[in-house]
């Protein structure tokens, strides 16, 4: 089904932030906001919850640490025990560097892979950009239009009175 959006184009982050606050206060649901760089404070006004990626990173790191310790203790202590340099079979101080590196490796990769999956980022030729200027110098606010239920005139006025320099419509083929 095709979806229709109204796009409000802004050219200043401060105007954008006030606009988001006012438009949400007016009871209009904002579909998404696109910006060329991370706008600080936008999470609060848009009501974006804190990301849970740090938790993923923590458990990834924990997995890496346990795996590294298990691997080294099992290989050096049980599977093929050999005394090297007079050290005991399970020489924990010697195992710290590898354990640390694998902790970091697992932590970073689990978090980054999760980030790609949840943000739906993958190499693809088909990219649905609402307005190409949003990766250059404009801030684009997208509001979904419900056929028959949305008063286009009022929406247009709402966006313009809150500082939008342009208001466009866009249909997206799903």
């Amino acid at each position: 089904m095709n979806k229709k959006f109204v796009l409000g184009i802004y050219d200043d982050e401060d105007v954008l932030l006030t606009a988001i606050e006012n438009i949400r206060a007016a009871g209009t649901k904002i579909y998404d906001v696109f910006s060329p760089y991370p706008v600080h404070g936008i999470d609060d006004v848009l009501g974006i919850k804190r990301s849970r990626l740090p938790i993923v990173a923590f458990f990834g790191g924990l997995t890496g640490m346990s795996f590294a310790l298990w691997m080294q203790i099992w290989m050096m202590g049980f599977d093929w025990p050999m005394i090297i340099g007079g050290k005991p079979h399970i020489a924990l101080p010697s195992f710290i560097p590898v354990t640390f590196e694998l902790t970091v490796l697992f932590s970073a990769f689990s978090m980054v892979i999760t980030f790609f999956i949840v943000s739906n980022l993958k190499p693809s030729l088909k990219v649905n950009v609402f307005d190409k200027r949003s990766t250059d110098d404009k801030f684009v606010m997208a509001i979904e239009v419900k056929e028959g239920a949305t008063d286009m005139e009022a929406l247009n006025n709402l966006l313009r009175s809150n500082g939008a320099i342009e208001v466009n419509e866009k249909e997206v083929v799903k």
Partner: protein
Amino acid sequence: MQHVSPIREPLVTGGKTYHDITEDVCRQVEAKPNVRWAAALAVALVGLAIFIYSVYRTLWYGIGEWGLNKTVGWAWDITNFVWWVGIGHAGTLISAILLLFRQKWRTSINRAAEAMTIFAVICAAMFPVLHMGRPWLAYWVLPLPNTFGSLWVNFNSPLLWDVFAISTYFSVSLVFWYIGLIPDFATIRDRAVGPIARRAYAVLSFGWTGSAKAWSRYETVSLILAGLATPLVLSVHTIVSMDFATSVIPGWHTTIFPPYFVAGAIFSGFAMVLTLMIITRKVFFLEDYITLEHVESMNKVIILTGSIVGIAYTTEFFIAWYSGVEYEQYAFINRAFGPYWWAYWSMMTCNVITPQLFWFRKIRRSLTATFIISIFVNIGMWFERFVIIVTSLHRDYLPSSWAMFSPTIIDIGVYVGTIGLFFTLFLLFAKFFPVVNMAEVKAILKSSSEVTHSHSKAATMHATDKDSNSNTHRNE
């Protein structure tokens, strides 16, 4: 609103708007390569050819092609390895540690510095792999079940720690760098006119649209990766230094090595960043983004790390005397006054004396002086590695095995060749990837630039006044 600080200089000069940043950075990606770039690439390719030839000789005839001997079993190759790894560290330092410290001046230089990290680590990895003699068996360093039974790699060995440290460092840096590139690839994708460019950058940008939710996650990921990369940087060079410190060779067996190597790595890395940045800003007309303020900040880091390195040299000498161990004392006296005295004093001159010139504001803010000093630091840090490795080995406990090391033409070829490899990669990066992180520069534009497209007239006027007043000392 534009904020004008009485004590801080703007980080972006020339009154840029968001669109100007896009234009300035994308220009060299979109335009035909300029002559200076092509000339530089030609020189780099000659270096690459030298590298390929030297590697071919090394592999075909064996590492007997190198000047190594029974006494000096590690020489030129490991010197180059440690030197390149050290250079790599500045990139992660700029992108990770300065991100954690909320240093805004990192934004214009972090992209190129991280690229430098990746390429420097690639160059570094060449040396231990070639030193194996049979690099096609390099996978033996991984803990894989093998055909000799379940014999595993030795986790007590610092050389194996290196394998884990360098490969983790490389992959995490690569991911960190790539994530930073995604939004900028999206910018180029949306501007691209040709079908090939549009497709290539569409794939590279991973379908980035810049939605608020994605940006929010993106910032979380960047911050945590920075938090992970920071101890990682310190651990990598610490582990490299343990290759030496856990042995019993006089001059190597010291507890000061980990911090001393890390400081040295940051020192040489910043010098290399400066060398590259001073050229890049000229070739690609990025003077407004990589300003004298940036150069000065980096020079301050060089003074700090250079002084730490200087103190470390002195401490080593003092401890050699204070320990009362005659082998240790001999090793250090031999370094300074033995057959390799020239290497030792080159190191002292380049690393301890030259960077101290940066205490003078005039020198710190002079591009020519900075460029020359940065080259000196690079040379000095190379000599530091050489002094540590060769002078400690060439006279060990057994005088009958004392020997001198001199590099062969192939040794020199591999080294010069990796510089060619490095510059080939860097030049290709600079042509096809955005050299300056556009998204991050845009994010600091309102708070740290000279004059923005401010909607407040008064602020603009004020900023313009400030600009004309301060221009006198900012002119190059």
